[in-house]
């Protein structure tokens, strides 16, 4: 087992077990799903369960570098374990915790290692040359790699509009590169957790049940709390009010406006029949089509998924966001506004 990976040290692979090279490294170890219960694997299973538990409880994952092979192997096994829980909360939480842990290790790495890890994710990234710009922004990355990760971050500072963009590249400092890498790692792990397995070994199912129980205790009622049961118009966000009024006074709504209003009303529990009533005042009202659209958005037809309204930033892009107020500045989604306003009332 003296295979030293060409680019990374064994220590790196233990710290960043999601790297492509980790897979190369553990291949010769011959890990099989069915092997999980075999001799020597109980240690790996134990550490895998520990990883997942820590993610749920602390949102971070401790590092144990004493037994490096065990540490490296426990990562893919932890992934299997999380997949076996078939629980979206645990999946999200685990990916987040691994990413956060990696991020806190990355800030202490030298530039070259950060580049290497970014290259492992196929980023087009390089160090800013002196001739280019004499500044603390040491890295330049291609805007597509930036967008894949920054587009989902809420803080205004990540908007492409405000970035230091020139000829396709964006200049960044180390802290920001690490933050984007954290996002890349989180998305990468979430994607791997999307995999489906035909069957799980019995041993794994038992542990998965334990983990699920822990998660249920940990999440408590706050995460699962839904929206109020009755429709409270006084708590509508300003954008929805504007659409609601436009609809009531039979103004024409664009496709995205209609979608936003309908999905909002459906999601706060207005029955399809009542939404339909509202649209009846439209001069171009078509009973069959409107009913179809509402039921489609409500998930009563087609793929069965219920659509939620677009988030605030999307509504801004398309000019649907109107009359922003103080509460708007503290939320990112019209449904969050509705929930919050209810609580304030």
């Amino acid at each position, binding site marked *: 087992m003296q295979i030293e990976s060409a680019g990374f040290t064994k220590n790196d692979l233990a710290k960043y077990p999601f790297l492509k090279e980790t897979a190369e490294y553990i291949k010769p170890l011959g890990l099989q799903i069915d092997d999980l219960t075999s001799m020597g694997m109980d240690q790996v299973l134990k550490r895998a369960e520990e990883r997942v538990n820590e993610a749920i409880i602390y949102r971070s994952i401790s590092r144990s570098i004493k037994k490096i092979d065990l540490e490296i192997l426990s990562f893919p096994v932890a992934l299997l374990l999380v997949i076996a829980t078939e629980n979206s909360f645990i999946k999200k939480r685990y990916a987040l915790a691994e990413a956060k842990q990696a991020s806190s290790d990355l800030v202490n790495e030298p530039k070259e290692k950060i580049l290497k890890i970014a290259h492992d994710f196929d980023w*087009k990234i390089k160090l800013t040359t002196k001739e280019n710009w004499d500044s603390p922004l040491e890295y330049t990355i*291609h*805007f*597509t790699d930036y*967008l*894949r990760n*920054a*587009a*989902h971050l809420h803080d*205004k*500072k990540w*908007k*492409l*509009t*405000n*970035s*230091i*963009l*020139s*000829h*396709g*590249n964006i*200049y960044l400092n180390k802290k920001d590169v690490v933050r984007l890498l954290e996002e890349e790692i989180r998305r990468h792990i979430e994607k791997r957790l999307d995999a489906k397995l035909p069957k799980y070994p019995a041993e794994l199912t038992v542990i998965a049940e334990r983990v699920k129980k822990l998660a249920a205790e940990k999440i408590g009622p706050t995460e699962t709390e839904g929206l109020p049961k009755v429709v409270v118009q006084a708590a509508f966000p300003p954008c929805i009010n504007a659409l609601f009024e436009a609809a009531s006074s*039979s*103004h*024409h709504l664009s*496709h*995205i406006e209609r979608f936003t209003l309908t999905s909002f009303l459906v999601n706060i529990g207005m029955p399809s029949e009542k939404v339909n009533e509202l649209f009846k005042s*439209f*001069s*171009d009202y078509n009973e069959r089509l409107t009913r179809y659209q509402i039921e489609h958005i409500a998930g009563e037809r*087609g*793929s069965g998924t219920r659509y939620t309204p677009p988030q605030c*930033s*999307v509504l*801004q*892009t*398309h*000019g649907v966001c109107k009359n922003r107020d103080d509460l708007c500045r503290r939320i990112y989604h019209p449904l969050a506004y509705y929930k919050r306003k209810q609580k304030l009332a």
Partner: protein
Amino acid sequence: MEASRDFVYQKFCEYYRDPSTVIPAPVLLGQREFAYLLFKERFMVRHKRFDGISNLKSVLSETVPSDVYHSCAYYENPDFDMDKKGWLGADLVFDIDADHIPTSCNKIHDEFTCSKCGFSGRGITPETCPACEGTKFETKIWPCELCIKSAREETAKLIDMLENDFGFSLDELHVFFSGHRGYHVHVEDEALRSLDAMARKEIVDYVTGLGLRLFEKERVNAKTKKANEKFRLHNFGWYRRLKLGMKNIIANGTEEDFKRIGVKDTGLLLEKRQAIIDRCIDDGLWGGVFGIGDGTWMKLALYVKNLQAAKIDTVVTTDVHRLIRMNGTLHGKTGLKKTEFPAKNLQDFDPFTGAVAFKKGEVKVLVSDVPEFRLGGETLGPYKNETKELPVAAAVMLICKGRAKVAN
């Protein structure tokens, strides 16, 4: 009316059946969804898949649709239902249409008629009918030179950003006249294909200048605990554009310009143009000239932003499943074809000659009302309730626009 539609259908037939008609194949044609609008039934056939351009051409010459589209997206199974297609990626596309741009012609050539009460008027279609408050209108719009010129200016701004900020070479940008009142820009770069709707939204926000931050937080005030915000711009991306634009307006603006922008002390700006440019913009000492404060800078910056933002259709670019008109096919509302030309020729490409599909023949039509227009190198009109022998291209356009019918 039937005879006029038949005439147009006949001409579309000739176009699609003519062996010399060139319809370029889009890249990865086999992974795209195709769709077309049937001429007579007005029904959209969707979810079609073709292995090659020759298959597609033979279907077009058999069915002769009024409009042909393909997806910007690539799919594993382009002919499956939407949720089973297997999205693989999509080109980045931009649509600039005069409909979304305020133009100097004020769309005076467009007509609207209320579907409910029949009230009609000219110009921009109102939201509600002044007579009966109905909201549905029949519209007759006209692709005038000023409309297309405005769309061209917006396209020029977009191309400049794609080239200088996003780093695409002009050869990588596919620029088209849409066949009606605007332009399309397609970018097929592989690095862009996998971008999701949120990432594309960020590109849209960049192009339209949405969310531009003009103030930077400085030190937090120890007493009030509030961060001081100072006007500050770096030298890249949008900020480079703002600085150049502000220099330009300060150097050349008239008193009227500054008043319109909302500057209070216009005299100071007019007197100390060069000092303000040197000290404040070039040296970055934004407070360096007494009397020109953050408020003035913000007004100037917002003015420049609105001038330089490209007015694109935001929905088209963010939709990763979008259908877009196919290059080389005819537009059902004009009979002009969607036509590609090199990005560097944007200002020189004349849609009214370059996108003309019907180059032969003349036909007698009864024209109801049309302003003067140019087509295929000829200037025609204005006509009002008269019978005229017109070139086929002009006759097709007028019939498609509902402003003429074939004379018996």
